[in-house]
């Protein structure tokens, strides 16, 4: 689970640990990673915090080696690590574009590439990548984010074809606006995240726990024939 130190990733790590998964917390923020590791252990689950920069090839390689050294296998990769700064295109620094694509899309590629040989050797496994409703509809001041998440959808469809012969499924989840730190940081002054929920059919913005059930479905035996799909979990805000 990349980016498992906070937000959706943290909720998914806890949710999967509660279902008996041993969780590698591959997270850039070492303090957050250790907090999640401790929380899973407090719940009598198994976890390993590994500080990881998903945009860095060497860091991803090292994380994968720690995982295999400790557990000897991989069942599920969740590519959740992502950043979401705001900028209109005309004012966007090339460095910010590179950072967003690097973390969100290239990070998804690097982690997937690192885990695929193990999954193929096992002839089993799941890759689940966190995209976004922004990939489906776009949004102002987030063209780099939308591009990175749209790229994840194309990557998912293509990778699913490569891995299907081995019984490995590859899917993407699209949350909507979710009550986590990054959207709160992006609000205009005086705006409330909760007010956005009034326009969403199910009447509220997403909670991080909303993604746990769909992730578990895709990760489990129940989802064994679902591959190459985009699963949208957003209270009906975008109907795909």
């Amino acid at each position, binding site marked *: 689970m990349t980016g498992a130190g906070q937000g959706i990733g943290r909720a998914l790590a806890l949710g999967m640990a509660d279902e008996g998964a041993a969780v590698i917390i591959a997270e850039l923020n070492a303090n957050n990673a250790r907090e999640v590791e401790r929380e899973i252990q407090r719940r009598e689950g198994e976890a390993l915090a590994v500080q990881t920069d998903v945009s860095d090839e060497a860091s991803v390689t090292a994380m994968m080696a720690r995982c295999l050294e400790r557990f000897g296998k991989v069942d599920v990769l969740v590519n959740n690590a992502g950043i979401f700064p705001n900028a209109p295109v005309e004012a966007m620094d090339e460095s910010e574009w590179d950072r967003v694509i690097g973390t969100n899309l290239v990070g998804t590629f690097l982690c997937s590439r690192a885990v695929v040989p193990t999954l193929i050797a096992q002839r089993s496994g799941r890759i689940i990548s966190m995209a976004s409703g922004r990939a489906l509809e776009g949004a102002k001041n987030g063209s780099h984010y939308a591009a990175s998440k749209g790229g994840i959808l194309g990557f*998912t*469809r293509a990778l*699913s*074809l490569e891995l*299907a*012969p081995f*019984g490995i499924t590859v899917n993407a989840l699209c949350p909507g606006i979710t009550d986590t730190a990054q959207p709160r940081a992006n609000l205009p002054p005086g705006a409330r995240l909760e007010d956005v929920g009034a326009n969403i*059919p*199910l*009447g509220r913005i*997403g*909670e991080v726990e*909303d993604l*746990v*059930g*769909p992730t*578990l*479905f895709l990760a489990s035996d*129940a*989802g*064994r*024939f*679902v*591959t*190459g*799909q*985009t*699963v*949208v*979990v*957003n*209270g*009906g805000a975008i*109907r*795909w």
Partner: protein
Amino acid sequence: MVNGGAGGIGLAVVMKLAGIGYQPIILDVNEAACRETVAQLAETGVKGEYHTFDLTRKDDVQNAMRDILAKYGGIAALVNLAGGTLYAHPIQEFPLDEWQRVIDVNLKATFLCCQAAIPTMKAQRKGAIVNTTSNFALTGDATRTAYAASKAAVVSFTKSLAVELAPFNVRANCIGPGRTATARVMQNFTPERWAGLTDIPMGRAAEPEEIAEGVAFLVSDDSAFMTGQSLHVNGGMVRT
């Protein structure tokens, strides 16, 4: 309530939902198949019930639904599975009555069953509807102009339903089977051709149970924040 519950996928859906605690009610035009389905349920210790009527006639649907709701006092989930290609012709040869029948069985029956069940679900302020789309709704197919149109229509119908019903905590989503190993489908293939299918990345058709897993997910609280969406279970044959 499973409309088309006595068919190949229907039996698997009824068995799966019964296995997780639902009381199954089968609505199907084929009485012999209904009796067989109820017999199979009885072998697992579940008392099933069936109603045989023409799902494309409003009065029949309303009367049957009224009787069922009076007996049970409520409905947790409605799964509209009845349908199929039924008739396939190049467009210039497509008889209007056959075209209309395809639309009626696949789309109108879904509309009528939803219309009959929804007042109860709204009063309950809880319910889940699963309608059936198809890989053909996404890609079309020669000779299937009626079927592809009917299934794409089911998707748009379901999205609209999702927005209407969300304020009442009633969700509506679509399940999208691809090629599935039912008797009806397999009779169109010689064993050699069935074994030699190359258009499905996972190398085989779906088992009906794999479609049933997707339906069970969509009616359960694991998908509580999903509405207006389509879940395609097709081994990667069509990637969304």
